[in-house]
């Protein structure tokens, strides 16, 4: 069983991060933007875990855990906001967010 090189995992994290960023920038629908942010956060976590594996330290996974916490909190608030927006003003177009008032 040949061990995996963490460096390759880092490269994968870079690719996933780029894809997530592209999603955030391209999509206008808030729910898709939120998903893309999830992808980006996940890529960050992957980079942390790979780093931890490279040095054989637990810190990488601890950081991943914190990223996970952050994602959970962010998603709960973000989804609540999306629901609110949908009921108040039936569109999820982020480009009309600049008409936000009050």
């Amino acid at each position, binding site marked *: 069983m040949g061990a995996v090189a963490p*460096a390759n995992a880092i490269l994968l994290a870079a*690719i996933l991060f780029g894809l997530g960023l592209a999603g955030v920038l391209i999509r206008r629908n808030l*729910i898709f933007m939120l998903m893309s942010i999830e992808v980006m956060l996940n890529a960050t976590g992957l980079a942390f875990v790979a780093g931890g594996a490279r040095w054989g330290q637990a810190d990488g996974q601890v950081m991943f855990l914190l990223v996970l916490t952050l994602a959970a909190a962010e998603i709960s608030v973000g989804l609540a906001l999306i629901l609110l927006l949908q009921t108040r003003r039936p569109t999820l177009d982020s480009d009309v967010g600049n008409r936000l008032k009050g």
Partner: protein
Amino acid sequence: MNALFTLAAIVAVISTTMVVTRTVAVHALLYLVVSLLAVATVFFTLGAAFAAALEVIIYAGAIMILFVFVVMMLNLDRDDADRENTWLTPRVWAGPALLSAVLAGELLYAGIAGHGTIVAAREVGPVQVGLALFGPYLLAVELASLLLLAGLISAYHLGRDSGRGG
């Protein structure tokens, strides 16, 4: 192990691309779950079994379920998917895609140029993680709990507001 890693990596990249490009929200969501599972596999091959388990349980399990519920409540239909299509013209996505590609390229370059010798991953078990979490990172754990509490309260508040304000 290396073959498993390569396979999982390919699955992750493809499914993530699908997440970004789908027009139907539920489809994108399912691809996202696949992507997360693939990343969990990568974690496993890196010897981080604990992180892999968390990825499956919390990310692919809990958070994605949240997404599914919200998408159901949004009551999206055919029209929404069509509108997504009109929004996704090349003129719209070419610039951001280029920007993201450049950023990813830079990161890749840094990743390749950065390491001199390829070192194999070393396994880090849950015991070590637990010791680190409740040792030097105790304060971070407390902060994370507070963050979650804040998320809980704000989600409750926003949700209640929407129910009343209708």
